[in-house]
């Protein structure tokens, strides 16, 4: 089955990102296809490489990055939600005159159309959040 996964909550504050990660990992292990993972609302905060959790805790961000590298996952951060919350890549820094970037490896910033396209192209849209 082909899935698009939507993550609506930030890391650590909420379990949504953890649950989504384990869902994606399990789906891939069972041979399913993950068309896209789309980060929306505070979920965009899963894509900052500046996250520094305590050493005895999981690293939610690098865990996504590693899974993306291993499986060629398409991790998409919503541009409008990212701009509000300060998630920045090279293109956004240039466009909005910011002095830094913070996007984590394996993530890219794009529009809401990517979420809608994912819902159309996939057999299931699975949403993680409240």
């Amino acid at each position, binding site marked *: 089955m082909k899935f698009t996964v*939507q993550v609506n909550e930030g890391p650590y504050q909420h379990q949504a990102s953890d649950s989504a990660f384990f869902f994606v990992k399990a789906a891939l292990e069972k041979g399913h296809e993950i068309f896209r993972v789309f980060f*929306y609302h505070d979920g965009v905060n899963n894509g900052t490489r500046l996250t520094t959790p305590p050493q005895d805790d999981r690293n939610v961000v690098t865990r996504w990055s590693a899974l993306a590298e291993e499986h060629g996952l398409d991790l998409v951060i919503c541009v409008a939600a990212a701009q*509000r919350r300060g998630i920045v890549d090279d293109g956004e820094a240039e466009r909005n005159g910011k002095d830094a970037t913070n996007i984590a490896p394996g993530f890219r910033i794009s529009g809401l159309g990517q979420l809608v*396209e994912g*819902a159309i192209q996939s057999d299931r849209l699975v949403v993680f959040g409240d």
Partner: protein
Amino acid sequence: MSETKQFLYVNRRAPYGTIYAWEALEVVLIGAAFEQDVSLAFLDDGVFQLTKGQDTAGVGMKNFSPTYSALGDYEVTKIYVEKESLEERGLTMDDLQHLTYEDEDDDWAEKDSIRLVSRAELAEIMAGQDVMFNF
């Protein structure tokens, strides 16, 4: 796009306490370009999103409620409001904006977009969808 799916956007939260309502509306507006069979549902505190006379000056936030009246222009013409959710909050249809669309199949006659449905009816509507976005 090769196929048309039934999309239901489910709105469950009050408009300003969290950003879900506004960012849900942004998905609806962008999604309209994909020409799917779109419906919106408002239930629980989500019914407050459609109330008329919203004034956000006191909280210093943008009042996005006028945007709902533009949905008809985006060919979003099916807006379900759950009857029980209204009643539980002491609201009636008179408290909501009057949302309309022009029906191209009926000589552009102006028609009501809001359809008041029971909780049981809404459950059936949900069961018939291909995709549900929950906000």
